[in-house]
């Protein structure tokens, strides 16, 4: 305990001295730092902050120091997180490399692979995207058809991915491909490759909310060196499931917080139907709002309980994904009811920024229960894994 207390003190001091004031403010979506070969630092303090955290190994606090991580224990990492929250520090770097590929490689990668891929992730030098879904393989992910043919010294990749997040900005992709067409799940492999390889075309997809963070990605005779296969040939499905569980828990949390740009649910509700004292006079709207705030509390408790459970089961991850995203959709609908015509604006100066953000967030929330495995898929998983209901 004494060791942890001194860690807390040191950390607090370091953060106070090193986190620039501009990095202690709420972060608009477009000021996120994603790193990559051509990094964008919209906020003037963002690069300083990222570089200082990289130097300390705290872009990946729990990873080993040899790969640029912080080498912290679980308890230390929690303290770091608490102290960052206390000061209101922004996360210095966002990346699917830190959140998804890195942990996977730490778990199953060879020494060579770890040395090759992990340091550029902790240093924010490579922007990774993920290639899972295909036009004909959404809920039925294992039905994917993108082929990787063994051409001796390389794989030749042909096919199409969809819903590749930020593929138009990404440097590399981690990608599920079919290496055996005679079987379904057992014919899938996991490849990493450079998005600058010849034969790759990326088209952003415009969403109903007006944003374009997802892409269609086309592969036409893309050559991938064979040493960029991770795990066993045809052993990709196990990797996919591991990554999916992780993605689900990320999305469920995102959903519970109601996205990033929108002020908290209670504040938004008060904005539209609160009186001067923050009370909500209309008893029916008040009841709708209270209902969702109650659900939020119960969901929070459940998330904590699930984290506490030794090795959260797939069924619980699915429960959190399902409930968190459906809950977020309900909250958005409640806010739309509160906002009335003020929430129906698409653009223009006549609407306040928060009003426009509400409308876009409401539309965007509809995707939460689709991306990362639809609600229907989550319910299937729960029925099978948690309840043992027969096929």
């Amino acid at each position, binding site marked *: 305990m004494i060791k942890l207390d001194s860690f807390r003190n040191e950390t607090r001091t370091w953060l106070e001295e090193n986190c620039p004031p501009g990095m202690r403010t709420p972060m608009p979506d477009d000021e996120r730092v994603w790193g990559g070969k051509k990094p964008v630092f919209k906020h003037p303090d963002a690069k300083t902050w990222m570089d200082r955290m990289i130097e300390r190994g705290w872009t990946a606090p729990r990873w080993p120091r040899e790969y640029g991580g912080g080498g912290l224990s679980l308890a230390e990492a929690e303290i770091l997180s608490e102290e960052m929250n206390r000061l209101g520090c922004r996360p210095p770097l966002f990346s699917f490399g830190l959140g998804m590929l890195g942990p996977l490689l730490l778990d199953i990668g060879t020494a060579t692979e770890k040395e090759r891929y992990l340091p550029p992730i902790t240093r924010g030098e490579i922007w990774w995207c993920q290639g899972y*879904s295909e036009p*004909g*393989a*959404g*809920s*039925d992910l294992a*039905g994917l058809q993108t082929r990787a043919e063994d051409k001796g010294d390389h794989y030749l990749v042909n096919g199409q991915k*969809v*819903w590749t997040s930020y593929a138009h900005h990404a440097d590399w992709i981690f990608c599920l491909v079919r290496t055996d067409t005679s079987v379904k799940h057992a014919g899938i492999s996991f490849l990493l490759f450079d998005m600058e390889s010849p034969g790759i075309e990326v088209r952003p*997809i*415009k*969403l*109903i909310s*007006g944003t374009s963070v997802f892409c269609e990605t086309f592969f036409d005779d893309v050559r991938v060196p064979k040493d960029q296969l991770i795990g066993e040939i045809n052993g990709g499905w196990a990797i996919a499931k591991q990554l999916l569980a992780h993605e689900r828990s990320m999305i469920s949390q995102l959903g519970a917080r109601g996205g990033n740009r929108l002020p908290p649910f209670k504040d938004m509700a008060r904005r*539209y139907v609160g009186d001067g004292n923050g009370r909500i006079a*209309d008893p*029916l*709207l008040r009841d709708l709002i209270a209902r969702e705030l109650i659900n939020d509390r119960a969901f929070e408790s459940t998330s904590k309980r699930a984290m506490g459970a030794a090795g959260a089961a797939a069924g619980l991850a699915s429960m959190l994904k399902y409930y968190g995203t459906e809950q977020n*959709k309900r909250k958005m*609908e409640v806010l*739309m*009811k509160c*906002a*009335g*015509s*003020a*929430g*129906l*604006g*698409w*653009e*223009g*100066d*006549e*609407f306040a920024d928060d009003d426009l953000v509400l*409308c876009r967030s409401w*539309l965007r929330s*509809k*995707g939460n*229960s*689709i*991306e990362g495995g*639809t*609600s*229907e898929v989550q*319910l299937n998983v729960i029925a099978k894994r948690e309840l043992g209901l027969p096929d």
Partner: protein
Amino acid sequence: MIEQLTQEDRKLLRDTAARFFHERSPITALRQLRDKKDAVGFDPGLWREISDMGWAGILIDENDGGVGLGSQALGVILEQSGRSLAASPFVATVLSAAPIISSAGNPEQRGNALPGVSNGVLVISLAHEESPRHAPHQISTRAAKNVDGYTINGKKTFVLDGHVADLFLLVARTAGQNEERAGISLFLIDSSLPGINIKRTTMVDSRNAAHIQFDNVQIPANSIIGKAGYGAEILDPVLDGARAGIASEMLGTAQKTFDITIEYLKTREQFGAPIGSFQALKHRAAEMFCEIELARSAVYSALQALDQKASNTAELVCVAKAKACDMIELVSNEAVQMHGGVGMTDEANIGLFLKRARVAQQLFGDVIFHRQRFADLIGI
């Protein structure tokens, strides 16, 4: 009593309207208006065609240049236009402003306004709401009497097609306090009068409304419709007609949303089978079917009551709008979810239906408003 259409007449009208909107105003038309950020927000040529069909004058008496077919006929047309999300000043003009003039305008007002509406050359917008949630008697815009007429001061919001209106049907207060039913008056005024400041607002459904500010706007005394202070007596029944009308449009919109979704369920395959073969989706589709049919019955009953001037019309209108709101919220949400990722793309039409649904839900009162009003009306 409005002339009643026979079953056959109604079927004929429905087929005509279905064909018309399908051919002349497909969903691509709405996309084009949106993507080129059209200044008007609807196609005036199409509006003229709609008028030529006699539909702009459908609620207007033959003596005033209309065709006077009544609410059930109107419902048939709106249901069809709802299927193709046709953008037009129908709601602003035909459904809400013109019926006020029809029911209470003096001969001069009728003559100046109604033939123009019927012919599709005049856009009149109801300038009514002052807060983001429908509140018919929450009027603080003041019309102060003076020797030359009235001076108007106040602010209106969510005025449909207000940026291109020739005339405003203005709801203002000549007496009384905010929320009071008494003291509300109605005025038919030129939109270009000095002191009127119009700001177009682009809505999520790619249609347009406006914020309108009135600063010391001087209007002539003969602008008033009906008797000063008794405007709510005229307005309230017209709002009921508008509510039933928008509920008809919602019915068409929801039915089309549902049709598209059922088609998708039959064709989209996952796990080696059409997703419509999965029982969970089947049951949810069947539940939507039930809700649509219930809303349909409610809408038809309300339209019939309007034509028959039944004593329980207001109640039936509440039932219709309340059911239509709940139903379309369910259907539009389920449609997007059942389309999966495709439903989230701007390229697919399903999102346009979702967007229109929420705007229509708010128009003339959402489900909460109508449940409360229903409870008031039946005395619980």
